[in-house]
């Protein structure tokens, strides 16, 4: 029965029995002793030790049998020593110290109650995320609208969303349009306009319009479920400098017990104080040395830091990332989709316009190149009919070839055309002008002849310039990496304020380039979670950008849920702040013990600075609370 009592219950019961003891300790000298005096102390403190102390004694004994010593060991040894001595003293009619053992337990339980409350607050992030989930959904089944529980949703269900509704799961809009408040999941404060074909995220809130959508992810596959899982993993991951705390804690408790014996022997045998005073010093040492604060220093800061990140749309995947992020000096950016919108548009066509676009579109229809959609959209806008392609081949990073109407058609970069020995001179000037304007050029050739040039431009995101400025100001070296030619790359880089550009990098070369920069310092790579996986993995910190349901949660060490480059600085700053907080917590937890032990041991007794065991217990309890509070303050930090 004792085992099932909660910390709070044990605390309340212990407190009730201890209040008269507290009276006897402090007020009795002014208002008179309670009847029965020492025997009353014995009768009041015994239930405190049994009810309040049960779990400490039980835990300490179980650990002892396994040759382990824990915080329970210290509390058990401390209180038991004071109690058994007092029983002996009671029988011999000497002064007793029952109140010390009882109050010690009360104070430690009080500390645990506070600690539990603050830990609950620290772990709120997950709970809040889970509460976002909708409970019910309106689906269109068997020809009619039905209200069903979220658990009964099936993949491809058609879900109807009315104004003000919470969107029940992830999906794609098939009818209607609206604006959606996605702030709770992505951190994006402005409502996002959505129409047919757009993805919606479960747990976000529909504003004014109505629409129906097809469920593409349900249950544990939804973005919210994945974020919750990721944050949960991160909060409990191995944290940086954890090893220090780990290795200390396994030696700490036995070392404290040995130290307490030394203190006792030194005071009693060498300095000649009485048995009782020597014992009180030893017990104080045992109590004040409880390494609770040390054990809480790392996990609570990690919990608050990663939870706070999730709220801002910055998912930090593990504690180790924090340590790596702190050392980063160079930030490499992928260009397309990261610095730029990733939605290129055809802006100019030089040469035979219709024929160039027709051939290019026909080939690109088979390609997965990011620029393909721009060319196809341009062709579709001009209602150009696409001819059949045979013998399609893609040469990674260079271009594509195929046969159209018996002609060998090729599409690709200027470099590729030069390598193929195709004369580009007739259009050289126009090409140079387009490149200088920051446009990507795609050469179109047929039968080894240049027939046209298509210029495509992908403009920088509205937030890119400000984000890069912030990073530069914070002292990071910013570098842009792209497969584009140097001129185009430079034009974009200039627009956003990046001075160092590495252009014409083949997709496979990005990871090598990360390695090259790692010679100069610690590197963060910011890129698209899907295409840049090798570079993200190679970098010291891989930061994957995503938007909406396109977030590749698996990629990178940090995932930015909003497609906003400003979050790179937020992520790096938050990582640094969390790491600094961990260091600070560890420092205080250790400093507390380093300072507290000599005081408890009576080293400064000649200066009148002493701690009785009950006060040592109080101080110990509040050191834990202060560490947790310090971690909680992290959520108020400006990042």
């Amino acid at each position, binding site marked *: 029965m004792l085992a099932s009592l909660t910390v709070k219950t044990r605390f309340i019961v212990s407190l009730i029995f201890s209040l008269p003891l507290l009276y006897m300790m402090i007020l009795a000298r002014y208002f008179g002793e309670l009847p029965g005096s020492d025997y009353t102390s014995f009768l009041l403190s015994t239930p405190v030790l049994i009810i309040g102390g049960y779990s400490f004694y039980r835990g300490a004994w*179980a650990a002892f049998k396994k*040759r*382990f010593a824990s915080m329970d060991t210290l509390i058990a040894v401390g209180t038991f020593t004071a109690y058994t001595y007092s029983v002996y003293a009671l029988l011999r009619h000497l002064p007793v110290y029952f109140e010390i053992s009882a109050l010690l337990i009360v104070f430690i339980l009080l500390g645990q109650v506070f600690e539990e409350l603050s830990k609950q607050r620290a772990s709120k992030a997950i709970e809040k995320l889970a509460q976002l989930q909708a409970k019910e959904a309106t689906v269109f089944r068997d020809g009619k609208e039905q209200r069903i529980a979220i658990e009964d949703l099936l993949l491809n269900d058609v879900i109807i969303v009315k104004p003000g509704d919470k969107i029940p799961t992830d999906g794609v809009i098939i009818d209607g349009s609206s604006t959606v408040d996605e702030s709770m999941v992505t951190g994006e404060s402005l409502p996002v306009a959505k129409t047919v074909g757009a993805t919606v995220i479960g747990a976000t809130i529909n504003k004014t319009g109505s629409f129906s959508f097809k469920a593409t992810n349900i249950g544990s596959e939804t973005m919210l479920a994945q974020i919750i899982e990721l944050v949960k993993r991160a*909060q409990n991951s191995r944290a940086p400098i954890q090893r220090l705390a780990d290795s200390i*804690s396994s030696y700490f408790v036995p070392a404290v017990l040995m130290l307490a*014996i030394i203190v*006792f*022997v030194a005071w009693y045998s060498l300095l000649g104080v009485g048995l009782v005073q020597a014992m009180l010093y030893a017990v104080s040492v045992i109590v004040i040395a409880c390494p609770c604060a040390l054990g809480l220093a790392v996990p609570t800061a990690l919990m608050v830091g990663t939870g706070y990140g999730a709220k801002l749309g910055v998912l930090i995947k593990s504690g180790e990332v924090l340590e790596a992020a702190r050392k980063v000096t160079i930030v490499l950016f992928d260009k397309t989709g990261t610095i730029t919108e990733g939605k290129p548009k055809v802006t100019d066509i030089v040469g035979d316009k219709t024929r160039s676009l027709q051939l290019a579109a026909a080939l690109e229809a088979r390609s997965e190149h990011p620029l393909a959609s721009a060319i196809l959209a341009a062709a579709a806008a001009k209602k150009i009919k696409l001819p059949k392609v045979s013998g399609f081949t893609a040469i990674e990073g260079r271009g594509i070839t195929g046969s159209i109407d018996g002609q060998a058609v090729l599409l690709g970069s200027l470099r590729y055309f030069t390598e193929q020995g195709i004369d580009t001179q007739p259009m050289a000037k126009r090409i140079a002008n387009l490149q200088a304007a920051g446009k990507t050029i795609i050469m179109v050739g047929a039968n080894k002849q240049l027939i046209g040039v298509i210029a495509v431009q992908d403009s920088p995101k509205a937030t890119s310039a400000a984000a890069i400025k912030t990073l530069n100001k914070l002292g990071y070296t910013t570098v842009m990496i792209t497969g584009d030619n140097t001129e185009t790359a430079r034009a974009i880089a200039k627009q956003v304020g990046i001075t160092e550009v590495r252009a014409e990098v083949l997709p496979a070369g990005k990871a090598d380039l990360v390695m090259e920069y790692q010679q100069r310092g610690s590197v963060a790579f910011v890129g698209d979670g899907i295409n840049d996986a090798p570079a993200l993995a190679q970098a010291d910190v891989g930061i994957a950008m995503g938007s909406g349901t396109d977030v590749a949660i698996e990629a990178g060490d940090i995932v930015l849920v909003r497609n906003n480059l400003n979050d790179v600085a937020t992520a790096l700053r938050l990582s640094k702040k969390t790491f600094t907080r961990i260091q600070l917590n560890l420092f205080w937890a250790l400093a507390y013990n380093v300072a507290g032990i000599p005081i408890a041991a009576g080293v400064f007794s000649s200066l009148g600075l002493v701690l009785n065991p009950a006060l040592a217990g109080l101080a110990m309890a509040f050191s834990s609370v202060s560490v947790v509070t310090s971690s909680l303050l992290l959520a108020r930090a400006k990042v």
Partner: protein
Amino acid sequence: MDKLLVVIAGILSITAIAWWFFGNKQQIAIASEQTASEQTATITVDGGYSPAVLSLKAGIPAKITFLRKDPSGCLEEVIMPDFGVAEKLPVNEPLVVTILPKAAGEFTYTCGMRMFSGKIQVV
């Protein structure tokens, strides 16, 4: 005389503490019970984790039952950072944790405050 006795008793106690807590602790790996599709094991939580070392086979989902007998708050939570597990263990009620040990290696798990630890050996 009694002062000398206290010194001797002190030295003996310190030696005993050092021997008991820092001395060589035997840790024998206990293997899980395996079928083709899953492996199961029970870890008793009482003053630490028994068995202290659990041996699992890579690639097979493992159902580990934690049975916490120790009411001490120290052992309330179990955290397996390598497997993304963080669970509160009820006293005297079994709690099953399912993990998939992917690659061979030695993985440490701990209590919430990282005071107690156990090992999982994946072979």
